[in-house]
């Protein structure tokens, strides 16, 4: 991808020539030849440290030999360099054998009970580069056996070889220096400050890169041997970052998930949610059979033909609409999109089961669909502007990428936000403090260049005028826009046309030639031409009696701004629910159709970049069907085939659509409304979801939940002073709908604002208060 000219340097390793880019370390030049130099502290994504001394090799440059073996992980290649590894230098071989022996003198050699056994770099390299027997007959260093350094991560200091990969990761990659090397010499050990656990959103990476069994995750401890696991490459379904993953399954059950290696996206990292939140798949209330509501109003198990017939009948009986959540795969979303248009004859479909606006819908059609901003643009940006987006909480790999550039070249990051977040602080970002609702004006006053990138989150939809302002700023500066939703399926759903104003590929529904394009591929005479309704409009139309039936897939009605309207609509309409587990929708559904979880099917997500993240079924023998397959069966039953029996069929059909080269939808400018003025006990509420919270996909993971950030209500020092509030005081926050009571935290936040987590333990704002951002709430110290 890179356009810079790369200087190549040729060196000789063990008699073989290899040409590598200037700056390449000797250890990696050797890898190019397939020569594996043993190592522990070395990690390609961490700064070289040269601590373990396992990778010593003999080096000479233009005939001048280093007097002693050198750490090949710290020395870049140079012209005229001749390297002799353990394969050709007896000195290097003895040096490596000596270091290995020393590494093992204080190691407990408890491989038979160690989780790392079988996939342990220490074990493997002791076999390949060590000697069979130790000469050490003395007393080993002992420590208390594993100690919890968080509810999720355990540390066994006896096994540790002090390579400092974990501490360097925490400092250099995550900027969470909560684990450090403590003490000195032979007593040096990894540790935490006793009152502050290792609560980093990225802590799991340290477990993965630990080259011994010193760091283990509570969830996987003592569960399996690596050779009993079947590994499948997968993609993370938790957010739109798009992590490459590996899912390890034993006898049909996922036992762990690891970060995969994709240098363009997540490099080799992921977040703890992606790593450890997977038990929801096997949660107890998983739906296993279709169900149909009988005459007496009870949901009873039904056969597939029975359920499909009931669904088809109900959907044909009245005007129907489709609500599909943001977690659908690209192919499933495509299925919903086609099903709405072909089987139901409507554009009333929306994937946004969250706070949203019509301004956003126009923005997505005009600016986002088909856009090509990528991680590489972040790497090359001169300035990144964050709008309605907290990368660490809402797209953690974007945070890591920003952090990498901040650390590497002091990338300028500016956040327009109501509250200074931990993540923005770590990015050393410029914090432009605004009142909730007043974001648009601040955006307008930014000056960017054509090398700048605007990262706007889904919360951009929560303040009127923000997305219009983002569009205007991009136009005036030529900066790139990237829209980063939280959920993994939203970008794919947009591209698939699972929204009322565009068809697949960003084709405007109001554009006749666009409709012709799609109708031709779909084999229908025509497609509906009026823009469809949004999620909220669909619920309203049901309640007004204009729509009588709903197809609902993966939606939590409580995620929206008006959950009472949503619940009323679900109760009133004929509801066909496609779900993996029993939910609020199930309670109101007339037909329930169980679907496959992401580990049980193949497919892809489009991450925020629009980059396909495809995956195969990790659990091979699941009987569960994808949404796509079930929608096809319903359509068949309705007599309007959509011909999408398999993921492959969907992929082929999407490919056959080709690119849309017609006009994009345009966007009308929305202005920000006047700000409310607040005083006394009134605040304007602001919130976002934390990475670790009460999200549906985190169910059943108590160890993970234990590392979540504390639930607090944040107000400014000035307002706290006026109310006589100090940290830890209890604040009761109320709207007409209800209240929550939270501990106060006085921090850097706009004076008008009160921040609380949107969906954390004790603070489920949409449920408890009915609002989440921009609404006036009253606050009482109790």
């Amino acid at each position: 991808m890179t356009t810079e000219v790369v200087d190549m340097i040729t060196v000789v390793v063990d008699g073989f020539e290899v040409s590598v880019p200037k700056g390449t370390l000797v250890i990696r030049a050797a890898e190019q030849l397939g020569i594996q130099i043993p190592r522990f502290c070395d990690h390609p994504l961490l700064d070289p440290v040269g601590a373990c001394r396992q990778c010593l090799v003999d080096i000479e440059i233009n005939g001048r030999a280093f007097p002693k073996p050198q750490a090949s992980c710290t020395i870049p290649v140079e012209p005229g360099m001749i390297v002799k590894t353990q394969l050709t230098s007896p000195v290097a071989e003895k040096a490596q054998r000596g270091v290995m022996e020393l590494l093992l003198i204080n190691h407990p050699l408890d491989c038979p009970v160690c989780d790392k056994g079988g996939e342990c770099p220490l074990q493997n390299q002791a076999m390949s580069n060590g000697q069979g027997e130790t000469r050490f007959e003395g007393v080993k260093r002992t420590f208390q056996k594993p100690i919890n350094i968080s509810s999720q991560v355990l540390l066994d200091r006896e096994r540790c070889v002090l390579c400092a990969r974990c501490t360097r990761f925490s400092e250099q990659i995550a900027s969470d220096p909560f684990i450090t090397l403590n003490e000195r010499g032979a007593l040096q050990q990894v540790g935490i400050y006793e009152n502050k656990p290792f609560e980093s959103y990225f802590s799991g990476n340290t477990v993965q890169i630990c080259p011994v069994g010193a760091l283990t995750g509570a969830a996987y401890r003592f569960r399996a041997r690596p050779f009993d696991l079947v590994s499948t490459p997968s993609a993370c379904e938790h957010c739109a970052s798009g992590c490459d993953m590996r899912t390890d399954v034993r006898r049909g059950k996922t036992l762990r998930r690891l970060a995969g290696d994709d240098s363009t996206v997540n490099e080799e990292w992921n977040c703890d949610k992606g790593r450890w939140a997977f038990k929801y798949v096997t949660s107890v209330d998983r739906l296993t059979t279709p169900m149909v509501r009988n005459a007496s109003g009870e949901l009873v198990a039904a056969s597939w033909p029975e359920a499909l017939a009931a669904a088809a009948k109900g959907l044909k009986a009245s005007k129907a609409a489709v609500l599909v959540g943001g977690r659908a795969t690209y192919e499933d979303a495509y299925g919903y999109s086609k099903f709405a248009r072909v089987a139901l004859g409507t554009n009333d479909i929306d994937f946004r089961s969250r706070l949203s606006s019509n301004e956003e819908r126009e923005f997505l059609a005009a600016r986002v669909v088909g856009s090509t901003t990528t991680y590489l643009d972040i790497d090359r940006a001169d300035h990144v502007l964050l709008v309605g987006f907290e990368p660490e909480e809402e797209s953690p790999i974007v945070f890591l990428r920003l952090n990498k550039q901040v650390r590497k070249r002091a990338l300028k990051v500016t956040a327009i936000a109501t509250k200074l977040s931990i993540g923005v602080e770590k990015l050393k970002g410029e914090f432009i403090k605004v009142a909730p609702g007043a974001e648009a004006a601040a955006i307008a006053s930014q000056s960017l260049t054509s090398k700048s990138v605007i990262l706007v989150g889904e919360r951009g939809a929560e303040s009127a005028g923000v997305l219009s302002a983002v569009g205007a700023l991009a136009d005036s500066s030529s900066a790139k826009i990237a829209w980063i939703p939280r959920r993994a399926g939203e970008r794919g759903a947009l591209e698939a046309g699972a929204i009322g104003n565009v068809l697949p590929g960003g084709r405007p529904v109001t554009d006749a030639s666009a409709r012709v394009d799609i109708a031709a591929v779909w084999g229908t005479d025509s497609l509906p031409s009026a823009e469809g309704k949004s999620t909220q409009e669909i619920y309203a139309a049901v309640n007004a009696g204009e729509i009588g039936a709903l197809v609902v897939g993966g939606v939590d009605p409580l995620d929206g701004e008006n959950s009472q309207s949503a619940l009323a609509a679900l109760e009133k309409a004929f509801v066909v629910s496609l779900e993996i587990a029993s939910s609020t929708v199930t309670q109101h559904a007339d037909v329930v159709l169980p679907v496959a979880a992401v580990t049980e099917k193949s497919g892809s997500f489009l991450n925020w970049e629009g980059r396909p993240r495809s995956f195969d079924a990790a659990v091979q023998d699941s009987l569960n069907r994808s949404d796509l397959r079930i929608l096809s069966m319903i359509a068949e039953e309705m007599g309007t085939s959509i011909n999408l029996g398999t993921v492959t069929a969907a992929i082929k059909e999407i490919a056959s659509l080709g690119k849309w080269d017609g006009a994009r939808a345009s966007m009308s400018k929305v202005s920000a409304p006047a700000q409310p003025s607040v005083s006394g006990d009134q605040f304007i509420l602001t919130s976002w979801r934390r990475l670790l919270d009460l999200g549906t996909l985190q169910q059943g993971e108590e160890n993970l939940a234990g590392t979540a950030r504390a639930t607090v209500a944040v107000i400014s020092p000035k307002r706290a002073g006026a109310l006589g509030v100090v940290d830890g005081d209890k604040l009761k926050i109320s709207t007409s709908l209800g209240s929550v009571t939270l501990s106060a935290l006085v921090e850097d936040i706009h004076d008008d604002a009160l921040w609380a987590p949107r969906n954390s333990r004790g603070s489920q704002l949409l449920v408890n208060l009915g609002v989440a951002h921009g609404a006036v709430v009253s606050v009482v110290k109790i």
Partner: protein
Amino acid sequence: MTKLTPVLSAHWDEKDSFTIEGYKRHGGYTASAKALAMDPDAIIQLVKDSGLRGRGGAGFPTGMKWGFIPQGDNREHYLVVNADESEPGTCKDTPLLMANPHVLIEGCIIACHAIRAKHAFIYIRGEVTHVVRRVNQAIEDAYKAGLLGNGIDVVLHIGAGAYICGEETALLDSLEGFRGQPRLRPPFPAIAGLYARPTVVNNVESIASVPAIIANGAEWYQSMGTEKSKGATLYSLSGHVNNPGQFEAPLGITLREILELSGGIRTGHTLKFWTPGGSSTPLFTAEHLDVPLDYEGVSAAGSMLGTKALQIFDETTCVVRAVLRWTEFYKHESCGKCTPCREGTWWLVQLLRDLEAGKGTEADLAKLLDLCDNIMGRSFCALGDGATSPITSSIKYFRDEYIAHITHGGCPFDPVASTLFAGAGA
């Protein structure tokens, strides 16, 4: 017979030698005044011409080190003085700073001017409260006198007990507020030292030697010492001698000469072994009494001049006990960063304890030497190398004594006989 040449120590016998008045009485701060009027490059050249080499152990030419600092780079430069004197046997900088801290401050002013630094840091070990007081007061008085604060600032940084911080890159990490563990080189401090800025790190004695060189000229300095080891230096004599102490002499003086001048080995005893420059320098024996104590002479005889810490041990001393104790020191002071030093010293101590207690075997000696071979040149910094020096050199000269512990089933020496108060009924 080589004559002693007190320069640094010339006025230590005056009660107020550590005060600014005492220092100025003998021309103190005239060299810095002279230097500040000179072109910085001319100072660097003068120091190069003098032949002054680093007095902290490695002997790198001081002027050359200064010359490595990039000029005209529009970045901050720093001078860092290594006053973390901790090498066992080494005890020259500490009495120097107690008796005359101003000579170091004057040296700092000159060196800062030469390398275009506005800031000097003196990193002093923390285990010498009164020396800290003296240096701190001297800095304060130099500010009051207008000698500091006019473009050159000196900050005293006080350590907290870590031998490794004498290693220059560990010192820099420590000064930046981190654990004092050595850094990868390159980049070298001259390019990216303190706060990643060009930095000169010099020993106290090196910097303190500069004012006299400026005042008296390169030729004067050159006139002392040997061909490649110019000037005078402090030799620190300790141990089983009648009169221990500091001896400032031209480089190249021998131990025999120093012993003759000072009153010799403890009366009634004979020299058994000694260190030429601290515990990290391979041991010498009586056969090395005439080795010229300059960089080349000591090196040619198989050791290192180091810090010129002449620790003398007579025939009452058990070399195994001595070496074990040093090895325990290295284990205690190993920073923990690299495997060979961290784990190696852990193992060495256990082997030596067994050997001293008579529980070892001859095979253990071979193991000990092989282990040293796996540490020497394999560790991250010189601490690991230093840890092996006393072991390998003592086995070279006193293998029989190790064997005697094995055959005797324990240490054949009486520890009381080697104490200072032996026979005094201690």
